[in-house]
């Protein structure tokens, strides 16, 4: 009986995801209210989330409840910072001088944009809900794609909470080595992205 319920729940949820995603990517594209986001992939993600929660609520109610509780707790703890980050992003779009952005992070900066991007990214908060709106506002203000890719790769690598975890769970030696390796990785990723975009003529 339990297996049947699981199979039925799984089948219904897969069907809901497939049909729902087809609808938002096809016939309903552009007709969904903007408060649900303006990207059809996001709409498909909303359907996926609801379906997954329904599936786990039917098959493993404890897991679904625990996940919802964790998410609400996380949301309550971060709401003020996310709002602050969105306000910073909104201000950056209007304040940041496009000439300065272009000089250090724009197309004309070339490979320097990647290095500057990684350096700025390192000190941004590790939480994507806070860092990403800020990075997108810099992009909107005139930064190049390699520049913001550098910011994304470097994002949060040297942020205070990550450093404090290095020291709490390991030691200062490990923190130094972790910083060296993660910043090197961010630089390699930025350079790879820059070369790829240059070859593709982006």
């Amino acid at each position, binding site marked *: 009986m339990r297996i049947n319920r699981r199979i039925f729940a799984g089948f219904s949820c897969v069907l809901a995801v497939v049909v729902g995603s087809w609808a938002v990517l096809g016939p309903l594209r552009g007709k969904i209210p903007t408060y649900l986001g303006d990207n059809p992939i996001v709409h498909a*993600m909303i359907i996926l989330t609801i379906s997954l929660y329904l599936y786990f609520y039917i098959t493993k109610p404890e897991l679904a409840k625990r996940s919802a509780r964790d*998410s609400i707790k996380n949301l309550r*703890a971060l709401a003020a910072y996310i709002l602050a980050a969105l306000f910073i992003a*909104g201000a950056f779009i209007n304040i940041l001088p496009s000439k300065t952005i272009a000089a250090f992070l724009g197309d004309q900066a070339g490979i320097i944009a990647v290095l500057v991007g990684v350096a700025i990214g390192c000190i941004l*908060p*590790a939480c994507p*809900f806070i860092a990403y709106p800020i990075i997108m506002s810099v992009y909107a203000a005139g930064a190049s794609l390699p520049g913001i890719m550098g910011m994304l*790769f470097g994002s949060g690598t040297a942020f205070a909470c990550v450093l404090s975890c290095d020291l709490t769970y390991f030691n200062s030696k*490990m923190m130094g080595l972790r910083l060296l*390796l993660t910043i090197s990785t961010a630089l390699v990723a930025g350079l790879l992205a820059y070369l790829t975009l240059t070859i593709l003529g982006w």
Partner: protein
Amino acid sequence: MGYWKKIMEVSWSHLIVLVVAIGIYLGTLVVNPEIAKSSTITSLKEIQRLAIPIVVAMFLGGLVKNLMTHEFVSKLFGTSEAREVLTAGVVGSIIPPCPYTAYPIIRSFKDAGVRFPAMMTMLITSTVVEVPQIFAGIVILGIAIEGARILFAFLSSFIVGYLFFVYARRREIYICA
């Protein structure tokens, strides 16, 4: 009131975001009220567009966090060193990206006997690749930028992780300091 008290009690590193936001708006309000007004309008539009998708992304992230148990990721490890580094890279990139969640997991792998280069690879990928951020990435950056971010971060993590593995083997560094 209790909520604000709670907010003020968190680490200073998070408070910086609040202080910077308040500082920017107070500053622009004094220097150029028009910019402050247009910034507020831009921000409110962004909040209206992103509020529900961000909440949904957080709920999806919460579910993924609870599905990625230590037992689940432990099953992925092999026996050879090279495979251990490779698997560590994959595991590091799929564990929850928040350092307060990721570090205890990585530490538990280290305590369970995962070798030093593999553990360093986990630390690299958990900080740089961060696959669970995909939901936030899709909502805020768009699928193309988020896809490119994960792809290049993954590739470079393996390059740096493997180079460190070769270096550690030569220097016979296996035990975490």
